[in-house]
């Protein structure tokens, strides 16, 4: 109680009350309780409202094991290969998108932080921000125009005589990767930019004076210094692209689903909310585990990122 008394002494009743109320509303009502409730919900059977709370309303792990497989009516274990494939493809594709973004964004972040100056640098930053604020759906739509069957790229390639028949970029998921990578460029650039900006120019100068070629300067000086920024950029891009829904819905090929689309289906057409929440938790948990594993692999501490 002493803590609270000190707190209110320091801030006064009104301001202190506002702080306490707003923060606890946020943490409890908006963040923690809904997540815990979802966790609880995912361990239940999908019952009609009349049976909720009745004797059949018991805990079960069946929603989770459903992703792996289940026993059919002859008691033979059948792997749920469709969902498992979707799951593993989603993670793999998210890794790919992250890697692509890193390759694309590291040079521009370095350029912005160390090379570009004054009005030009400002213009660059400004032009980075604009595409980011255009609606997610519209961005995906733009890529559909670009990569569609009669889209700009196919038309150009045809008129140049490189190909005869349209390439189905959407079925090959190229449109999806390009669209996802596009959406998170900014989230990759800014953490890296922040990290590199605080690098003392003299270090680069010193390395150059000592005769180091440009690639070794990056490999030995800039990248180690920017590692926290790179990690947080990669983490954000990976989490967001694995959890993306709009781009896969619009740009995804007819035969390739994204894991979030499975969740969406359980909630809408499937009508099985507990299973949908179990899938959502699986997505969340595996993304977190994957990120932590990667951080262990690249020897980055959790505290270093998010600065």
């Amino acid at each position, binding site marked *: 109680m002493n803590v609270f008394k000190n707190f209110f002494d320091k801030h006064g009743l009104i*301001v202190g009350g506002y702080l306490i109320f707003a923060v606890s509303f946020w943490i409890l009502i908006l*963040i923690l309780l809904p997540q815990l409730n979802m966790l609880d919900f995912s361990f239940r059977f999908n019952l009609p409202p009349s049976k909720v709370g009745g004797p059949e309303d018991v805990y079960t792990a069946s929603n989770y094991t459903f992703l792996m497989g289940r026993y059919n009516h002859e008691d033979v274990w059948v792997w749920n290969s469709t969902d498992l494939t979707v799951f593993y493809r989603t993670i793999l594709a998210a890794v790919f998108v992250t890697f692509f973004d890193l390759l694309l964004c590291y040079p521009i972040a370095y350029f912005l932080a160390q090379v570009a100056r004054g009005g030009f640098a400002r213009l660059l930053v400004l*032009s980075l921000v604009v595409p980011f604020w255009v609606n*997610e759906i519209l961005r995906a739509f733009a890529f559909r125009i670009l990569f569609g069957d009669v889209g700009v790229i196919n038309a150009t390639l045809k008129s140049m005589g490189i190909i005869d028949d349209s390439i189905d970029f959407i079925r090959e998921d190229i449109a999806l990767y390009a669209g996802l990578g596009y959406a998170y460029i900014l989230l990759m650039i800014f953490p890296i930019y922040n990290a590199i900006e605080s690098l003392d120019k003299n270090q680069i100068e010193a390395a150059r004076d000592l005769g180091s070629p440009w690639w070794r300067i990056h490999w030995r000086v800039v990248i180690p210094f920017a590692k926290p920024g790179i990690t947080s950029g990669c983490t*954000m891009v990976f989490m967001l692209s694995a959890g993306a829904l709009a781009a896969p819905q619009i740009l995804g090929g007819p035969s390739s689903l994204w894991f979030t689309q499975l969740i969406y289906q359980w909630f809408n057409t499937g009508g099985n909310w507990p299973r949908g929440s179990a899938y959502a938790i699986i997505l969340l948990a595996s993304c977190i585990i994957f990120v932590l594993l990667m951080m262990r692999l690249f020897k980055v501490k959790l505290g270093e990122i998010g600065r």
Partner: protein
Amino acid sequence: MKSSTFLSIFVGGYLVIFFGYLFGPLILMSITAFNSSQFPRVAPWDCFTFEWFGELAADDKLLDGLGNSFIIAGGVVVISVMIGLAGALMLTQVWPRARPWYYTIVISPILVPGVVLGISTLLFWDRLGVMVDASYDSVFYNGTFLTVLGQSTFISAYCMLVFISRLQRFDPALEEAALDLGATHVQTFRKIMLPFLYPAIGSAAVLAFLASFENYNTTVFTIVAESTLTTVLANQVRYGINPSISALAVIIVALTIVGAIAHEAMRRREELKVRRGELTDTSSAFGNFMQGWLSGNPAMILLMLVFVAGLGTVWFSSQYSAGQCKLDLREQKELLQQRQGPDIFLPGSDAGSDTPALEDGATDGGLDNNSGFGGVFDPNNLEQAPTDADTPSDGEGAGAESPGSSTFGDVFAPDNLNEEPQ
């Protein structure tokens, strides 16, 4: 230095590719909004037109969603700015051992997939509603309410980050001085802290508005039976695309560019003011303004260009009529078809309806011929084709002979998909 020129060419090429990737899709999409073709495309250009903007303005569902989006964004701005401010102020108040936990919890909504946030919000309020036995039109099942809460969960964290970065430059001595001089806590908060945070409140509000306005992943679960701009758009895009969406994109892109440039100009003016204030206090307000306006700021020049381009467009549209162009195009097409001679699937005189949409063509075909396959099996089809193919110059007559063979309307007319004249 040879290697340095090589390097600068490399860097220049890279910048071109990067910004091509960044802006190419948006520019192409914007161009398609002015093409009269039914399918959004650039390559075979039909007619310059503004009709898609008109169609956009007549789309009730979209406007309805837009209204909802504004209401939701307003709610989110209020809640997120308040929560974000409190969250940032609390960060220094939480005792040190708990601080990493606190920070992890409040920052986590940014990383948690939006889908998960939407689902958890929906389920939580659904269960609360069941607990208190609320009716289905109560607040627990209200899409707008749920969406505001669901979005605020993570947008508050964005706002908090904005406030934290501003607070890092705050001098706590100011607050202590005010308290020492006898101000109450509320007074200190209102007269010292809030004025210091005003710029951050502004940018947090803008950020919250934009983030709420463009959110889809969370909204699609929490919106229940209602709709927002993004959910309406997503439905439209998934079930068939047409250039009126491009028209909307043009508007949004234009607003974003103007907003970003205005923000940049404002920041620049403020900086100039600060710098000039340090040097001299004598320069006139007008001189300040003009110098701020034109001091080689590329953003300002760009804004002028946008303005000039806008004026040009208005002038052009008053001089130009899309209808005439479309008529011309139709004539051209008819001429072309007649010259080529009739194809089984290419009725010459039926093209009067000016490149009908796919669905229209299909239903027309279905209505004209009551058999499911239209006139595919009409023996005349096969008989006519070879004879006419021998006499390609006999355009008019062939055109008149073939309308009965319009099997699927214009569905298979090559012109529908690919207007390139062969």
